């Protein structure tokens, strides 16, 4: 028996709109929540057009789709993820299967390479592919187990339903971060330190509405009423890992701190347990994403001023939420740098998620822009010239988290030096 996908009616509407457009093959991403029994699809978004890129099937195109998926997945709060890929194409469903298979594997590989959290035993590893013939509107749904390189297509059930988005619970919290990491003379991966922090979050005790429930229990009791907005507050209790480090003092070339707070949010379908897992993963992702975003900002300057004490501060982008239309409580998010306006947010929601959002729709109240103390140091906003106009960058410039050290970041950060 294959998996079943319960799909929001709005997604059907979106896909039919793509079918009625005269353009050639269109690919895109399917977004929702997976659970052991069945998956819920709440959004679909087409791959942004790319002037340079070749037709579907080429490796450039595959990278383009994956890069889109990577950026989209950063915009999804806890509980929502990229579930798979669709293609609207007149070719036979059988002929597109190889393309779709390559796309889901490539997408999944890139997204999971950024994940700092540890996958759970029972995480669903099946990804969905959907082929729609714009003429006949015939829809073929197949899944691939992306953790099995030899996996073959399995038929799956694709079923539209109204109100899929309406009975979700929201779990949220504000979490303060206080990371202090030495800057070694030679090499140390900031990524490693983030991982240690992520593990601490994963080990943490999550309390939902004041109750310490077992890790796998559902947050709700009794029948869920539709269209009743349900919100829960999470609290996270953490303790450092017990280590036995004998050498507790090390010489270093400086240090990096990340201090402040983040707003975390996770959405859970009524049949979906694991609220704590979703919330913890969102906490980890939103911090990791922002640190990565800050560090991957391009820079032209590459100056080092050795020997003198220097401190620079950078505001991490703040999280801005945008409600998914007609979906009740669901929202997506983006990250706003201090030099960006809300219009840049709405542009990105349009480009990445094909969403029409007005600036008034955005919720930028959950996180405030940090105030940087000017006495000791100088806050640095990244100048507009340094940010690309379009959010989706060419995949060849994309940043690989595994080869990244703070030493390598110095060109970025030292571009804005202390003015004294």
């Amino acid at each position, binding site marked *: 028996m294959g998996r079943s996908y319960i799909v929001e009616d709005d997604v059907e509407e979106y896909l039919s709109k793509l079918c009625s457009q005269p353009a050639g093959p269109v690919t895109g991403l399917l977004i929702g929540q997976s659970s052991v029994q069945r998956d819920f699809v709440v959004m679909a978004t087409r791959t942004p057009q790319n002037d340079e890129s070749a037709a579907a099937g080429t490796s450039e195109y595959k990278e383009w789709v994956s890069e889109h998926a990577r950026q989209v997945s950063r915009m999804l709060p806890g509980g929502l993820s990229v579930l798979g890929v669709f293609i609207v194409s007149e070719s036979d469903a059988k002929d597109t299967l190889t393309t779709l298979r390559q796309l889901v594997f490539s997408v999944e590989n890139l997204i999971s390479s950024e994940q700092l959290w540890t996958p759970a035993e029972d995480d669903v590893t099946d990804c969905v592919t959907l082929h729609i013939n714009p003429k006949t509107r015939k829809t073929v749904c197949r899944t691939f187990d992306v953790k099995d390189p030899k996996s073959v297509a399995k038929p799956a059930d694709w079923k539209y339903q109204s109100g899929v988005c309406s009975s979700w619970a929201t779990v949220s919290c*504000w*979490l*303060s*971060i206080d990371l*202090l990491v*030495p*800057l070694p003379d030679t090499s140390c991966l900031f990524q490693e330190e983030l991982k240690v922090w992520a593990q601490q*979050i994963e080990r943490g*005790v999550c*309390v939902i509405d004041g*109750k*310490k429930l077992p890790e796998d229990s559902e947050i709700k009791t009794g029948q869920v009423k539709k269209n009743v907005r349900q919100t829960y507050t999470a609290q*996270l*209790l*953490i*303790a*450092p*890992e*017990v*280590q*036995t*480090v*004998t050498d*507790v*003092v*090390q*010489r*270093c*070339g*400086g*240090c*990096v*701190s*990340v*201090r*402040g*707070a*983040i707003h975390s949010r996770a959405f859970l379908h009524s049949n979906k347990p694991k609220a704590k897992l979703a919330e913890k993963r969102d906490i980890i992702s939103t*911090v990791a994403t922002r*640190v990565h975003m*800050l560090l991957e900002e391009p820079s032209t300057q590459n100056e080092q*001023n050795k020997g003198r*004490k*220097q*401190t*620079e*501060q*950078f*505001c*991490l*982008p703040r*999280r801005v939420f945008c409600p998914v239309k007609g979906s009740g409580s669901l929202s997506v998010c983006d990250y706003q740098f201090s030099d960006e306006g809300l219009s840049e947010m709405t542009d990105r929601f349009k480009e990445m998620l094909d969403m029409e959002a007005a600036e008034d729709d955005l919720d930028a109240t*959950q*996180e*405030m*822009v*940090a*105030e*940087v103390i000017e006495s000791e140091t100088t*806050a640095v906003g990244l100048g507009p010239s340094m940010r690309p106009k379009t959010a989706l960058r060419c995949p060849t410039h994309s940043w690989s988290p595994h080869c990244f050290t703070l030493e390598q970041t110095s060109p970025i950060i030292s571009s804005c030096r202390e003015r004294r």
Partner: protein
Amino acid sequence: MVLLDSESVVILRLRGPLELKCHADSTDVVLMQKAISRSFEDLRLQVKSESCVLAVCDSPVLIWPNKCVFEEITPDTPCEDVFQLIQTADQDPGGKRSTKKKNRKGLSASVINLSLMMEATKPGPLSAPVLARTIQTSHFLRATLPVDCAVRSGCSDTIKDGCGRLLEALTRQLFDMEKATLRHMRGATLLVPEPLHFLLPEPNGLVTVVFPRGVPDNELEAQRRELHGKFELPDDRPYFRRANAYHFPNEPYKDGYLRNPHVVLTHPALDNGKVFLVQGFYSYHHYMQDRVDDNGWGCAYRSLQTICSWFQQQGYVERCVPSHKEIQQALVDVGDKQTSFVGSRQWIGSIEVQAVLDHLLGVTSKILFVSQGSELASKGRELANHFLSEGTPIMIGGGVLAHTILGVAWSETTGEIRYLILDPHYTGAEDLQVITEKGWCGWKGPDFWDQTAYYNLCLPQRPRAI
């Protein structure tokens, strides 16, 4: 030795690593010490903040002591009642959740373990994070402090009071850790401060002392001397060596040997009699342990092992309990036996025990000789004095069987006497009930001895040291 009265006392024990991180701007030692002090002050503020959470282990109970928030219990819950919310380990995992019934007799029930956590979440909205990068050659200090506080509390004391006292102890411990860290700083090397609990004679009771991890006991004598002065303890026996650290009743001994099986026995009632017992802790060594089949020949070896365990557990020696082979080798080394003795199944007696104690532990022993077992009945005063001044287990051998004497009950007026015997001939499992009910550890009368055989008693003398 004052033992905890499990009937009326609950120990609240709070553990949890706390992370000490600081970036010392300068390589100057004084400035570095200041930075360390600042970091400790930060930690003290953290534990006084509303973020501080105490989680009762294996239970849903969470306590925010500085906000007075108690989940699953009320602030006025007596400490004793918290046990009802603690799940015991022997329940099948994933099975039905039953709660442990209050067990007043069980020693394991008298400790409530709590872990120290920090709430990372806060009421919002708050400011988004700032990344700051400082470039300067400097020192980065990072240590995981193994916080471990224990306070005694009456069963009917409220959990709120208990937690309040735990937090006081925690703040005090952070001060002690700071002091220990700075005291044992050598250049740019730091030693992690490690808290240890010691159960001192009343009125001191359970106290916690911070020692630098990795520094051997013999280098800490000056600090121990200060402690002896502070707690007004005699200067002739160790109280603060690591081996003296208090063993919490709910923690199993990892080596598997039973400790002090005699404590569950009822003392014999003698007219005007007094009881004189071994002081401190020993482990029960007997036949067939350690996968050595010494049934029929190893009793004196086992008795010697019990004595060695006493010296180790009181902190006099760090040497672990010697095996049969090591004992035999020691006797060869001192010239008492031929090389072929090693690996043999030959008996040893009190004189050999004395020689081994001297050679392996540096402990001298007195030998008490009686030509007939019947004479032992008149040795009450000598034995009583031994337990008063030395307090070590006595090995008795001679005619046939070796035994360990752990104490005497003796009446000065009537001369009546009973001997507390630990029998090394036991071959069964470490089952306290069998051992005490079947008399493998028990009180015996003068008729226990072979009235016509001769006996040698080896009375180990404890070194005078702290």
